[in-house]
């Protein structure tokens, strides 16, 4: 891989590029799905190719090919340069890059058990065992399960001299129980919705999350939700469970912190951001107990790596400190535009086929001192606990949001009360985060993994991490999604 990336860079330089980098990416994947007591899908894949990115005359160009012969790579490198020259005809200012040291490095993601060494029979067996338990609960209409595994190697080389090899193993597991009534559809997921939990880990994560051990409970909850009272339409205190808070962080902090958005570069699709550069170090994003970090170094977290996809070393960057907005997810061609002396290392690509763009790494809420979820409940006089995301929506500057969850419970006098269905809450991001008055500690903190954050044109799907404890927010509008 070293030879072909160096060849690509050499061709690009000779064709006129002032900067070039090349990534050879190899991905091996397994996606296993069950539906009720049958195998619904066994899809095994592998892909390999090279993505070549160049600057020429101040404009960006990118081309990619899966054919790693010198002939094909030369054609791709020349195409990248031709595309960059075309870019340069549409620019007022040339692109410049913030400095970054060069590296000769190798990085391997941590895992205990290689999931590719575990047999398909064992994997399917785990899913079917959970399915049997769910289907045995009266009222469950469909039981679903899924496991995914990805083994990825990335070799990066740049015309500045970096040579970086990284290896990743990512694993996921999840089950869902559906229950359908006359005019009602409810579901419960474990460990999380949207495919389950995703981690930068091996088979040990599947064992840890114990699908069978939780199957009965979620099946019973799905059925119980059909007859549960609906979430009231009111303003009240809301406790968000860890998994729901993870998504809240993703949507209301992670995305607006992407510097390309803040600079207007994503305005055509993903949108812009209310966290504009003039607000940096000034805007009161949240209450003083709120601290949010972008941490690509967090061990085992889905969005971690050694170096991003333009060769910048992973970092831990505060986005919000003591409630004040103070940082961005940035790249080499954006960081200096807001006075940062270095890229924050957030350029990531879905595969060899796509150009890297600014993406979340692990955007996490630093745990506080409010203890466990049980402690926060005990400290809450009147509110609603909501857990496990069902729907999510936010405006294109990341202000107005509305989320719904699979399940909720009343909290009265410090105790959990009735189960509630169709829970939803909404708000305006800085108002919401300024109402945060209790953040749990490490007792119930989880590094959640979301596999499919969508951004870019053409769309790229990116795996991101979100560490979250449970937390409480005061005076939140709830139940609005079903208000008629």
């Amino acid at each position, binding site marked *: 891989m070293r030879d072909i990336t160096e060849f690509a860079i050499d061709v690009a330089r000779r064709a006129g590029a002032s900067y070039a980098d090349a990534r050879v990416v190899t991905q091996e994947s397994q996606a296993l799905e069950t539906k009720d007591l*049958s*195998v*619904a*899908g*066994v*899809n*095994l*894949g*592998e*892909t390999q*190719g090279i993505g070549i990115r160049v600057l020429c005359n101040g*404009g*960006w160009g*990118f*081309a*990619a*090919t899966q*054919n790693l012969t010198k002939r094909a790579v030369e054609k791709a490198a020349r*195409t990248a340069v031709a*595309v960059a*020259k*075309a870019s*340069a*005809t*549409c*620019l*007022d200012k040339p692109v410049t890059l913030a400095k970054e040291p060069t590296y000769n490095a190798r990085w391997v993601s941590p895992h205990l058990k290689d999931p590719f060494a575990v047999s*398909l*029979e064992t994997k*399917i067996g785990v899913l079917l065992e959970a399915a049997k338990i769910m289907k045995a609960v009266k009222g469950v*209409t469909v039981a679903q399960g899924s496991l995914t595994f990805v083994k990825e190697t990335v070799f990066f080389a740049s015309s500045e001299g970096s040579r970086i090899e990284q290896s990743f193993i990512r694993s996921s597991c999840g089950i869902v129980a*559906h229950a*359908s009534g006359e*005019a009602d*559809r409810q579901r419960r997921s474990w460990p999380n919705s949207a495919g389950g939990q995703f981690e930068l880990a091996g088979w040990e994560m599947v064992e840890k999350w114990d699908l069978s051990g939780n199957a009965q409970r979620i099946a019973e909850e799905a059925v119980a939700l059909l007859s549960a009272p609906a979430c009231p339409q009111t303003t009240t205190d809301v406790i968000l469970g860890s998994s729901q808070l993870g998504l809240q962080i993703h949507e209301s902090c992670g995305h607006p912190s992407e510097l390309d958005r803040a600079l*207007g*570069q994503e*305005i*055509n*699709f993903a949108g812009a951001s209310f966290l504009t550069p003039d607000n940096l170090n000034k805007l009161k994003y949240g209450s003083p107990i709120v601290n949010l970090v972008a941490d690509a170094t967090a061990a085992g977290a889905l969005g971690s790596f050694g170096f991003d996809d333009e060769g910048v070393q992973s970092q831990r960057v505060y986005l919000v400190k003591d409630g004040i907005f103070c940082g961005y997810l940035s790249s080499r061609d954006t960081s200096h535009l807001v006075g940062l002396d270095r890229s924050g290392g957030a350029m990531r690509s879905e595969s060899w*086929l796509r150009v890297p*763009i600014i993406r979340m790494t692990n955007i996490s809420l630093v745990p506080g001192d409010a203890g466990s979820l049980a402690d926060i409940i005990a400290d809450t006089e009147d509110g609603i606990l909501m857990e496990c995301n069902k*729907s*999510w*929506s*936010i*405006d*294109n*500057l990341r*202000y*107005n949001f*509305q989320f719904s969850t699979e399940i909720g419970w009343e909290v009265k006098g410090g105790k959990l009360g009735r189960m509630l269905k169709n829970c*939803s809450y*909404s708000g*305006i991001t800085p108002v919401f985060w300024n109402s945060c008055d209790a953040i749990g500690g490490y007792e119930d903190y989880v590094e959640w993994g979301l596999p499919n954050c969508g951004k870019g*044109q*053409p769309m790229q799907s990116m795996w991101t991490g979100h560490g979250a404890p449970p937390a409480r927010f005061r005076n939140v509008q709830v139940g609005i*999604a*079903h*208000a008629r």
Partner: protein
Amino acid sequence: MITKNQAKKIIDLALAHAKGKADAAEVYVTASDVATSRFANNGMTQNQAPASSSVSVRVLVDGRQARLSTSQMSARAIRQLVDNAVIAAKLLDKDPELLPLYKPTGSAGNGSIVSRFDRKTAAFSPDSRAAAIASMIAVAKAQQLSAAGTFSSGSNAFAIGNSEGLFEFHSETEAESSVTITAADSSGWAKAHNPKVALIDTVGMARRSADKAASSRNPVEIPPGKYTVILEPSAVLDLLGFLWYDFAGTSHLDQLSCFLGKVGQKVLGDNITIRDDAFHLLQAGAPFDGEGLPRTVVTLVENGVIKNLVHGRRSAAKFGVKPTGHGLMEPNPMGEHPVNIVVEGGATRLEDMIAGTDRGLLLTRVWYVREVDPATKIVTGMTRDGTFLVEGGKIKQGVKNLRFNVSLIEMLNNVVALGPSVRAAGEEGFPAVVPAMKVSNFNFASTTRF
């Protein structure tokens, strides 16, 4: 771009190698050569020209099946792929519902398509894309506005073959452009997608977006509540996209569809007729489904009555009906999906919808639409990039954006006017042929700050 002969060679190679090792085999070849240029702040920001192809093999072995795919297209890699698929299939339990592979009958569905491959589009160069982008930027700059958007062009190919003698090949070109033009506190947007690049009017799109940005300056906040809304086609597309899977046979078998038990009943308004028509002149895509069956035209809704569902082979067998040619690539728990939607339109032009509205809102597009309730089909989302208050039959001013929570079933019972159907492109799903709609009692739940 892969040719028909090249695709056949790959498929034949895989099938020949599978003979004697698997009971049956199906091979799928895809190729994509689509370049995308992006711009923002009146300058080019990203410019990419990736090319890829892949081959995917599904083998049936003693009642078991597995699918493997690879991007390695050498003969050796393809033989290895087949061998690995056979090994994988043997490790699984039997699937009692596994059907034999589709055996082509020689029928061509109930329609045919005109070519969707345009040489000019396939050959559209980086410089041509840059020139198209420059034309949009020029419109923005002339009014001291800022333009952002994309221009993409290229071609795709799909081929499927199986050990029952099936071979189908389809290639088509695509061109797509979208533009957002912004002023200090307002914006406008337009998007188009077509197999022919010549039919993408970048200057026209930029002018419409610029006009919207200019005319929605200083937006006012209006209270949430129920309004009559005029939805431009892209807004209709991005809302109704959340309804299509409810017409899939599998969604009824799983008891998930909002139309469960309602086939044959009048559920929507009299003026709502929807079909899935792969052969419509304004459609794109292959005329065969994920198992190679020819697509058929299916009337989903007729005058508000839920008429038919779409079926892949599995759900068709369970329903005791013929498959409709909408199956997804097996194995797939979803089963099938309508992909060539045509919502029948009417004769009311957008201007006439506006002129006939005492008080209402004109929506250019909707954004971040997500399903809230699968039974009642409540979806939520935001307005964006050109939201206007209409009063006394005229566009009065721009308004700050609002969040809606609407039931799509209620919405399609409240359509008071339909425009002519056009090919629309949005951001929440695939392009389709839909009209503008005027809808009463559209529920807005809250506002935002811009």
